[in-house]
């Protein structure tokens, strides 16, 4: 199949031979159903993401944050999408596509559990059997989402190899797919993987920027000056950026997890962060050429973030390309600043954000807050993509808060037993 699979130097299809026919089949289905709306596929997707998903999500002014930073801040409320995160856009799109393709079974991987939850919900909604692979370590730190997947009828299979996070879960899901490829569709959870996944996942999520565009023109009288979104694999990022890429006047910030430090212990094979756009080197992982956290030999390094949803050693190839061309500006926010932002948004705006999302707000504070470094002059108004709600992260957030001396955090221990 001769569909373009690349974003500049990035992208491609680096997968075992057994998967190539499935990738060709998927490429064909993507072109016909998603791009050409064959059999009214996109109409059905839009109906379902409206009625089942709850779109459009609001564009809300953040009054306290706007006052704090002296700039107009708006929130794209993807946390209000069904399931509590933007992930449903893609999961519903892909499960529906699998149905149109005549597949009988859905598999997926999940890190924080949001993608697994969204896929389990979409599979239940569309009556498809579903199995989710999840790293053992992530299962332990994201228990509420594990329960949600199980309650929606999905099998959750722990992955014990390696450090037991998203990277290992993706490898394991690819192995399942290589075994069951004739009947099974693999719902990749971000804009990563072999073509056509990065473009297709972006297209399902681009409804976010489509709405940002329409809502801004309607309510603010023009496009936003800046859009800020957190980036792990990069699905909410590309969703928030896609329909604004051609508008050079809109500055696009991808906020990566700076973890505990940006320096790397190569000997241990561990990066204490997940900032592959900011610090990664080009390489090939999980089906695509992209920016990766790797050692000098090309072995993939373990990543780290307080947010398991950002804890991945790679990133989408399209984002890598957009960073190289200067269209998207990558920035980093560390664990501590993300946690502070988690509490600030909760207290100031009454919105408990996912720890992923908190990174995006940490960036605003680090630049424009009272102790901000002023390194960026924001173009106004700023739209921050609230990629998900933080209910799933409460245990992790409390545990991590207790390890630190955060001035703006409530003291939780007074309620202990």
């Amino acid at each position, binding site marked *: 199949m001769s569909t373009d699979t690349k974003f500049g130097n990035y992208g491609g299809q680096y*997968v*075992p031979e057994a998967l190539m026919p499935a990738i060709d089949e998927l490429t064909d289905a993507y072109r016909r159903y998603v791009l050409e709306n064959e059999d009214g596929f996109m109409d059905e997707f839009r109906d379902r993401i409206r009625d089942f998903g709850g779109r459009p999500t609001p564009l809300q002014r953040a009054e306290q944050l706007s006052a704090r930073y002296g700039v107009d801040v708006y929130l794209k409320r993807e946390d209000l999408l069904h399931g509590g995160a933007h992930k449903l856009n893609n999961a519903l799109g892909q499960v529906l596509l699998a149905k149109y393709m005549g597949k009988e079974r859905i598999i997926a991987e999940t890190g924080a559990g949001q993608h697994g939850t969204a896929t389990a919900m979409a599979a239940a909604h569309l009556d498809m059997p579903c199995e989710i692979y999840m790293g053992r370590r992530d299962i332990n730190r994201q228990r509420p989402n594990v329960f949600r997947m199980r309650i929606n009828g999905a099998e959750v299979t722990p992955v014990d190899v390696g450090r037991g996070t998203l990277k290992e879960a993706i490898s394991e899901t690819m192995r399942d797919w*290589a075994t069951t490829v004739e009947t099974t569709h693999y719902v990749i959870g971000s804009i990563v993987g072999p073509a056509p996944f990065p473009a297709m996942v972006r297209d399902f999520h681009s409804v976010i920027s489509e709405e940002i565009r329409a809502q801004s023109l309607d309510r603010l009288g023009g496009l936003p000056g800046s859009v800020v979104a957190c980036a792990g694999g990069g699905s909410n990022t590309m969703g928030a950026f896609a329909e604004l890429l051609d508008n050079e006047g809109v500055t696009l910030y991808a906020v990566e997890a700076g973890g505990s430090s940006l320096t790397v212990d190569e000997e241990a094979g561990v990066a204490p962060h997940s900032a592959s756009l900011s610090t990664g080197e080009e390489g090939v992982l999980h089906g695509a050429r992209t920016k990766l956290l790797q050692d000098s030999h*090309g072995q993939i390094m373990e990543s780290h973030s307080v947010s398991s949803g950002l804890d991945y050693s790679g990133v989408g190839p399209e984002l890598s390309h957009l960073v190289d061309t200067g269209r998207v500006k990558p920035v980093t926010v560390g664990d501590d600043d993300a946690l502070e932002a988690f509490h600030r948004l909760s207290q100031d705006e009454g919105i408990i954000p996912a720890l992923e999302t908190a990174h995006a707000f940490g960036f605003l504070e680090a630049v424009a807050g009272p102790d901000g470094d002023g390194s960026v002059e924001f173009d106004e108004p700023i739209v921050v993509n609230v990629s998900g709600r933080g209910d799933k992260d409460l245990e992790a957030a409390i545990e991590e808060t207790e390890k630190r001396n955060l001035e703006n955090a409530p003291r939780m221990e007074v309620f202990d037993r």
Partner: protein
Amino acid sequence: MSLDDAFDEPAFVPYLAAGDPDFESSIEYVEALARGGADVIELGLPFSEPIAEGPTIQRAVVRALDGGMTPERFFEFVEALDVDVPLVCMTYYNLLYQYGDEPVRPFVERAAEVGISGFVVPDLPAEEADLLREACDEFGLDLIFIVAPTTAGERLERIMDRVSGYVYVQARLGVTGARTSLSDHTAETLARLEDYDVPKAVGFGISTGEHAAGVVEAGADGVIVGSALVDIVADGHDNDDPTADVAARLEVLARELKAGALEGSQRRSRPERT
């Protein structure tokens, strides 16, 4: 050494991860396979994300990486081996991509220098392989591609157009790993390849002499065996067995598999009794 004569008779092609569980023992294990009758040896250069491998080889990869295996150590490993059969490097694309100051070519040049005969790169489909094919041609190495039960039509043509040395026929869908029975896919895939003039070596799931015989009888020119051999290395490692004992066990299984391959070709030439 070239792969040209390796398939003159039904070939036994064993796989081990280089450096599993450590450099010195692994040298002895590979040499034991050669003594046991290997016609080609596939040496795994461990990559941290082996997406085409089942649990047995995943664990071997972890042991070898923990034992300090790196691409440069791998080349030293090949230089240290005292074997008289062609060696094929089996690894993942990122390692070829990162070595040296440009993608792929320095890796292939160094591999040629130490005497590697060819490559198998499971995550590099024919569509993405131009750079590697070019470098292999420049330095006179073979590039082996995998054909899966799902490979047919245009894709099969494309692969067979670019393959050299031998074609790695994947016996069944899925990942590597020893099995107790053979898949029906094997005969079908071999039939699809009948008209192509390149040796066909079948891998994925072969663990006994009887399996090997069956595969050759079905038309294969060789059998590739990995996980069943890696299991022996793993057991030896887990039980702290002396290296010589583990090597002896590898040699015994190697002889059985080679004998099986030869038996298979005899069965093929013998008319079936009615």
